[in-house]
């Protein structure tokens, strides 16, 4: 029987220069940040990153890992403009493929379903059509209109964070929103899932637990138990977003820069990281804020 439990290092060892990686979550919510930190400590470069972006995208840009970002936004919600993504854009150092939030869902679905594109009307009349050569107008066999073809977003690797998983890759998200994680996983050749805890398969026998499983275990390449692995993003209902940490992170762009943030919070093990942020108790005490 397959045992898919592995370490963050094992995951990053499978990420090669020039790959396209999809990152789950949404802005400052349920991002696989511990896996991102492992990636930040590696030599991997020239990545194309597909994400509903937050600090994951900002940090990868700051560390010079990124060739291109496929994005509709990069934001920390209450800090609307992600500081390091902004700096990367304004210095002209990264390429972008800017799309609508809905385009990303369509592109991931197209990849998951083995289609070259999915037609839509999203983008008509806007500068997405001017600046993004990936979006193309196509004719329809059924009417005389032109439609926008959103190409498949095929991912070499997806990185997502779940609440819990078993060793065979059954993954559960109990939070109020799955975001597009299911489609990131389905669009990827290899999907790696960090999780708060590993459980026995029997955990999922109960109906209410099985209902919070959104993809088949064959879609999961590896599972990595990392408690607190989404911090500083949220992992509801386990813990809320750490706005204090994000404020310090955002301030670091002007005070100390990426090198200082990297030394303080990236150049360490996950255990050391948890100690620096006050341990799981501090994490569990974060406000579970409503919007």
């Amino acid at each position, binding site marked *: 029987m397959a045992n898919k439990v592995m370490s963050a290092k094992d995951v990053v060892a499978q990420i090669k220069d020039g790959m396209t990686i999809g990152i789950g979550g*949404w802005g400052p919510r349920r991002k696989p940040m511990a896996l991102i930190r492992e990636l930040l400590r590696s030599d991997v470069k020239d990545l194309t990153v597909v994400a509903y972006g937050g600090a994951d995208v900002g940090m990868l840009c700051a560390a010079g890992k990124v060739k291109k970002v496929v*994005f*509709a*936004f*990069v*934001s920390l919600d209450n800090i*609307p*403009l992600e500081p390091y*993504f*902004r700096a990367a*854009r*304004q*210095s*002209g150092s990264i*390429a*972008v493929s*800017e*799309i*609508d*939030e*809905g*385009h990303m*869902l369509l592109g991931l679905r197209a990849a998951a379903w083995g289609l070259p594109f999915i037609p*839509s*009307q*999203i*983008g*008509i*009349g*806007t*500068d*997405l059509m*001017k*600046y993004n050569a990936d979006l193309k*107008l196509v004719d329809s066999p059924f*009417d*005389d*209109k*032109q439609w926008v073809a959103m190409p498949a977003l095929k991912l070499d690797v997806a990185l997502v964070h779940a609440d819990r998983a078993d060793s065979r890759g059954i993954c559960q998200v109990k939070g*109020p*929103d*799955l*975001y*597009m994680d299911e*489609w990131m996983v389905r669009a990827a050749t290899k999907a790696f899932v960090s999780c708060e805890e590993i459980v026995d398969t029997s955990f999922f026998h109960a109906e209410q637990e099985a209902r919070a499983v959104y993809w088949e275990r064959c879609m999961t390449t590896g599972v990595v138990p990392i408690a607190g692995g989404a911090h500083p993003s949220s992992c509801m209902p386990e813990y*809320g977003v750490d706005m204090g940490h994000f404020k310090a992170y955002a301030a670091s762009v002007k005070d100390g820069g990426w090198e200082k943030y990297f030394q303080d919070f990236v150049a360490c093990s996950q255990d050391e990281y948890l100690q620096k942020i006050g341990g799981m108790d501090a994490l569990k005490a974060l*406000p*579970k*804020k*409503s*919007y």
Partner: protein
Amino acid sequence: MTTEITLVDRIICAAALAWKDDGEVLATGIGVVPRLAASLCMKSINTDLMMTDSESWMVSEPVPLTNSCASSNIPREGWMGFTRIFDNVWSTKRHAMVGPTQIDKFGQANISMIGSDYNKPKVQMLGARGFPGNSISHANSFFVPKHSKNVFVEKEEVDMVASIGYNASRLPRGHKVDDVDVRMVFTNLGVFDWKGANHGLRLLALHPGVTVQDVIDNTGFAVEIPANVPVTADPTPEQIAILNALDPKGFRAFALG
């Protein structure tokens, strides 16, 4: 007993009318003023409106603006995670009110980036977010806290056209400007729609003390000015009471910057 009516309450009450005749659609207000306007409308004007908690639940009652964690108190009526948001957007059964950084004479709006070089923006903002899909799918209204030529730009078009407007030259084969529905604009100067000649911006009402000249001086393109321009209505005590309940901490006092 009289209390002074604040400008922000006046704007919220005017903006609440944006969804008056929409029937059963999802009302989405992004930011304090649009959210309170949508909430006020759902509470007192169009009680068929639908709404979310701004995260992942459909709610039967607008959720007040607080920083609380009382998720057990959310009056849920269904789940509305982000994948389902797009099902709703593309169904057209939605009317959003948003706050663009730039708006041009076509009603095209920008929240993506500022500058003339797309590959090296002067200011990177949010990105196009859901503006392209929203604007081609359903009605959208705008809230502008500081009406100026920085927002209502003099240049032909906004720096990055993130949402579609009434610009026929941009439409691919088979699409018509009449399919576009840029609805209302609410600013600190007055109320507008896009039903001027050729879908141009049209003044509908001015807030007390604001002149037509103020509007002309602060808008970078022509505004259609009707012969008679009314003053926006005073909020009623009932409306103020609803707003106080929806915004018990008074966040709206800071919403005009």
